């Protein structure tokens, strides 16, 4: 990627912050020992101390105890450890019923699908037009066989924020374990485990200018969870494997760099883009709730046109965004999130996600809106749907 590209796909991954790289460097070149060698040589002690400090900094940002946070290779692994770990721990003691929502990201969705193939029962809760889970439906779905509820903190595509406090309280009252995927909210929204009754939280470093291949899982003390990644006794015997100390240090540095002011800044870019597009381009729909959405996300459907054509035109003009179109996905299926909020295929195919970071500016937002306007008008000119749409309307 050249420097001229304006990168607006920050929910997929972010550019590493130089300060993060600086913090990581010594752990590649100087303190490269493994933390488990602390009783062998002093380099091991330094490595152990760095890992402990990274853990302490991240867990305290969640108001959690040190030993409640483990490092992983990213969100996918965190959700796998959480969901499959609880499923294994409770299948013989309590039951095999799991509840989730229809719009979860792939790690959660395919974890429960894989468990379904192994004989677990899964309830996939519907969401409303903005993407919210119905709390009464959740309550009604819990049975005495329910072992786990996994509902995301906010959605990866449309940014809708779930009321995880209310969900956690329902789970706590019914004595069901609650896992939430906070990949897109960690450090962007307040998340305090002393106030929110959640048992397991998936987080990741790559969404906040930290290194890729590093994530974490909050595991509330006494949560029943079976270790299945076998090997050594690292990470409180929950996740075997040599610790990624540079990664852990980089992750904690990335956490420390996010400020409330930055989140407000992201929100201002988001709102500016949404307002301009909805006002200036006809036949557009905002996907997700107008206000109750994460600061870095805007998702808009440009009706009558297909998203991959939009993204390619934008790419040729120097902008990187993503779309929920089937043509864009590796499975050739339209976004399950847009379909999940009641959208039809056309709405999914024409959806474009813009996601912002600290390296974007308001000028970037203005220039992408100007170009999108052009591109969408041009693609509508060649679209056969414009006629069909007119006919629909005149009916």
């Amino acid at each position: 990627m050249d420097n001229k590209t304006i990168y607006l796909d920050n929910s997929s991954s972010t550019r590493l912050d130089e300060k993060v790289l600086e913090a990581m460097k010594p752990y590649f070149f100087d303190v490269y020992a493994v933390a488990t060698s602390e009783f062998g040589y002093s380099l091991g002690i330094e490595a152990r101390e760095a890992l402990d400090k990274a853990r302490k900094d991240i867990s305290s940002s969640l108001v959690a105890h040190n030993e409640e946070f483990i490092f992983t290779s990213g969100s996918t692994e965190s959700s796998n450890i959480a969901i499959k770990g609880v499923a294994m721990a409770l299948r013989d003691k309590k039951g095999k019923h799991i509840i989730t929502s229809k719009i979860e990201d792939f790690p959660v969705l395919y974890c429960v699908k894989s468990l379904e193939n192994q004989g677990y029962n899964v309830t996939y809760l519907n969401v409303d037009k903005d993407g919210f889970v119905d709390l009464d439906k959740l309550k009604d779905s819990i049975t005495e066989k329910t072992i786990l509820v996994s509902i995301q903190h906010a959605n990866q595509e449309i940014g809708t924020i779930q009321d995880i406090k209310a969900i956690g309280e329902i789970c706590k009252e019914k004595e069901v374990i609650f896992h939430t995927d906070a990949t897109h909210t960690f450090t962007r929204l307040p998340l305090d485990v002393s106030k929110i009754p959640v048992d397991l939280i998936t987080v990741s470093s790559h969404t906040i200018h930290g290194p890729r291949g590093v994530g974490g899982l909050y595991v509330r003390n006494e949560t029943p969870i079976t270790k299945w990644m076998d090997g050594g006794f690292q990470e409180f015997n929950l996740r075997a494997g040599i610790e990624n100390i540079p990664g852990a240090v980089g992750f904690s540095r990335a956490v420390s760099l996010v400020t409330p002011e930055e989140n407000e800044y992201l929100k201002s870019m988001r709102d500016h883009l949404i307002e301009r597009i909805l006002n200036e381009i006809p036949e557009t729909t905002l996907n997700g709730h107008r206000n109750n959405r994460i600061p870095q996300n805007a998702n808009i459907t440009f009706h009558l046109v297909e998203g991959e054509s939009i993204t390619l035109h934008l790419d040729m003009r120097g902008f990187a965004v993503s779309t929920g179109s089937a043509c864009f996905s590796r499975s050739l299926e339209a976004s399950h999130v847009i379909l999940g909020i009641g959208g039809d295929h056309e709405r999914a195919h024409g959806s474009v996600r813009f996601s912002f970071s600290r390296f974007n500016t308001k000028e970037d937002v203005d220039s992408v809106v100007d170009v999108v306007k052009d591109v969408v008008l041009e693609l509508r000119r060649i679209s056969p749907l414009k006629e069909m749409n007119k006919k629909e309307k005149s009916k």
Partner: protein
Amino acid sequence: MKFPYSEKVLKHFRNPHNVGKIEDADGKATEGSPACGDMVSVYIKVDDKTKKIKDIKFESYGCASNIATGSIITDLAKGKTIEDAKKIDWKRASNALGGLPPIKTHCAVLAVDGLHEAIRNYEERQGIVREKKPTTVEIIRKRLKHVMNPLVGLDIIRTNLIKKINIENGKVNIDLDLPSNHQFAANIKEEIIEKVEPLWDVEKVDIKFINN
């Protein structure tokens, strides 16, 4: 900058040729639907005497592969007799474009089907009536040659994904050599149904994944 398409595809995508609609077309067809992700309409004007395609236009609701194929096939078909235009298949279109990524060939097939259907529409209007023959396994196999295996960019007949086709009282049963949780299972199933269900004597298509 790097793009997932050839220079030629990008050229046609940026400035597609023969875009638009012919109001008094002699033949026209729309293939695909918003549900399947791509949709293309093709319009032709045919000279009655020479049977040559005088004018051809297309509209596309689709990705780059679909738009570029629409552009190239209209270029290729223009001025040709309808018999010659019938011989334009997706491989020729794809070659003329300098190749397409395997996962994108089905979007090209759709555009080519649009051309063939527009010609068929012209012939039907001219009174060359095609009789309604009962659907046979051969007819279904022929249709399924237009469903792509996105992994390799070849059709599902050629890549041997179809293990059994059986027709019974308007019900078509197809065994597909794929696990039900395969990356493209849902997509291939949808495309098979789209191709087979419109046959006049087919009421229901049932697809079984047999490689579990």
